[in-house]
């Protein structure tokens, strides 16, 4: 049996779409997530003590179902739960897989290293086979299947709740999440200062988007680290990424290559990011971004 872990992170539905290549796959659903159309059978985890995320409890639910193959989203939770399953069962775990095909009892796969700037082709043997799917390599797409939902209650004891979410701090109202934003306005060293981001904020607000930054920008303290786009930050997948004063180091590119389109504003025609762009304005972002904002305001409202 093949299982795919699903939680409220949208990357879960990408993983579920990816997992269908292995044939019949059950969605193992934690929380209130609709997987209708994606798979024939969903198993919704129900347990009186499981009101919050508890990695060992989630891992126990997987272990109890004795799957041969487990797919999870390449997220903090996906990786954490799979690592617990791997450690408990002495199984190997392939993280951030982008391609996979079964050949006999071997899974031939390609996975990301270096945040995606390098690929590794590998063979995964043994059982169960555990893999996470790299975010934004497939689009979430239902398959028009009739989905029956069964409840499943794993046998959980105190040990499974040794680590759990004790409390949460909700995001401030009105915050646009970087990883799910439709538009991201990103800034690099060229923005020049913390205050330089004001106009990027303004543009992002006009477009209903989020502001992001390169690693330089978060290391300099111009933006909080949670705004970082790149290998050590967020992987974004907006319809449009507007990169302002970003040179395009490989560590940044791997974070924004999920963007459908890229508009670059940069002084340097030869900056690596320009080669990745659909559109580029070559010039000073401190003149061009305010001009865009002014133009949008004058004709828009």
């Amino acid at each position, binding site marked *: 049996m093949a299982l795919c872990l699903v939680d409220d992170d949208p990357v879960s539905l990408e993983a579920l779409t990816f997992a269908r290549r292995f044939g019949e796959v059950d969605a193992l659903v934690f929380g209130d997530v609709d997987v209708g159309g994606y798979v024939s059978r969903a198993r919704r985890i129900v347990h009186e003590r499981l009101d919050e995320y508890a*990695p060992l409890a989630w891992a126990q639910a997987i272990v109890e179902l004795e799957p041969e193959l487990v797919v999870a989203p390449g997220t903090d939770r996906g*990786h954490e739960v799979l690592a617990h399953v791997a450690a408990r069962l002495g199984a190997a775990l392939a993280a951030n897989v982008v391609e996979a095909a079964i050949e006999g009892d071997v899974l031939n796969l390609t996975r990301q*290293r270096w945040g995606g*700037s390098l690929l590794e082709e*590998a063979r995964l043997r043994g059982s169960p086979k555990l893999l996470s799917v790299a975010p934004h390599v497939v689009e979430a797409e239902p398959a028009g299947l009739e989905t029956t939902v069964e409840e499943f209650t794993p046998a959980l004891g105190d040990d499974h709740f040794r680590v759990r*979410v004790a409390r949460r701090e909700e995001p401030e109202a009105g915050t646009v999440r970087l990883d799910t934003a439709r538009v991201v306005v990103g800034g690099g060293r060229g923005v020049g200062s913390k205050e330089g981001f004001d106009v990027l904020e303004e543009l992002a607000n006009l477009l209903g988007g989020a502001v992001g930054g390169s690693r330089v920008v978060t*290391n300099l303290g111009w933006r909080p680290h949670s705004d970082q786009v790149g290998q050590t930050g967020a992987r974004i997948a907006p319809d449009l990424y507007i990169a302002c004063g970003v040179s395009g180091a490989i560590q940044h590119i791997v974070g924004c290559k999920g963007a459908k389109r890229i508009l670059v504003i940069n002084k340097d025609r030869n900056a690596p990011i320009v080669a990745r762009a659909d559109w*580029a*304005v070559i010039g000073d972002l401190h003149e061009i971004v305010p001009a865009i904002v002014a133009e949008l305001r004058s004709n828009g409202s």
Partner: protein
Amino acid sequence: MNVLVCVKRVPETGARITLTSDAQAIDTTLLGFTISPHEECAVEEALRIVEQHGGSTTVLTLGPAAAIEQLQNAMAMGIGEALLLETDGSDWNAESTAAAIADAVRTRACDLLLFGNEAADTGDYQVGVRVAHALGLPCTTGIKGISIAGGTLTARREAGGGWEIFELPLPAVVSVKEGINLPRYASIQGRLRAKKATIERIAPEPLASALETVRLAVPPEQETHVEILRSGAEAARVLRDLGLV
């Protein structure tokens, strides 16, 4: 509070990664090496915890003799002791790495084991969790904030634009992410002290893994045809045409 922090020596890759002719490794002949970014933050966090609560710090790495450079870098930042699990320099799988680390630290009195969330190069996302299981310790991963009070560690993880907060009894294993702090620079005195410090060496043996690397590949460049716009007004028109306004 005795804190042990595990780091990995990784090449400082430039604009484009070049592979060896057999496609089994990165060609590092022209590259320098560094501590993987999440782990550099783990080193800083170990120092801050001990500055606040007292105790000792130890840095551990599994890698070739040349990884002494990274142990010394951590000691130059202020870490007290260093331990090298010496290999021939080949990539070790996550199972072997975790088993070797667990064996090496089992007899040490550690209150907290810190890891980076994932190594920059292999990106396996699992060594810390495997070590925790081998030692029977609670663990949490992806952490961007730690505070400790009365034998309980509180760990913060970004989730859905907000935070989820875990509480763990010590001893525990925590994998941290860049952003938890800004690592300090090493001092001159620190560098001098690190050069003279003794480094304990152990030679572990690797285990087989069910995950076997066939080859590495550099992903094909996705060059797009870029249209050069002449002004902000033209860019604004593109945004309108995309239906974003």
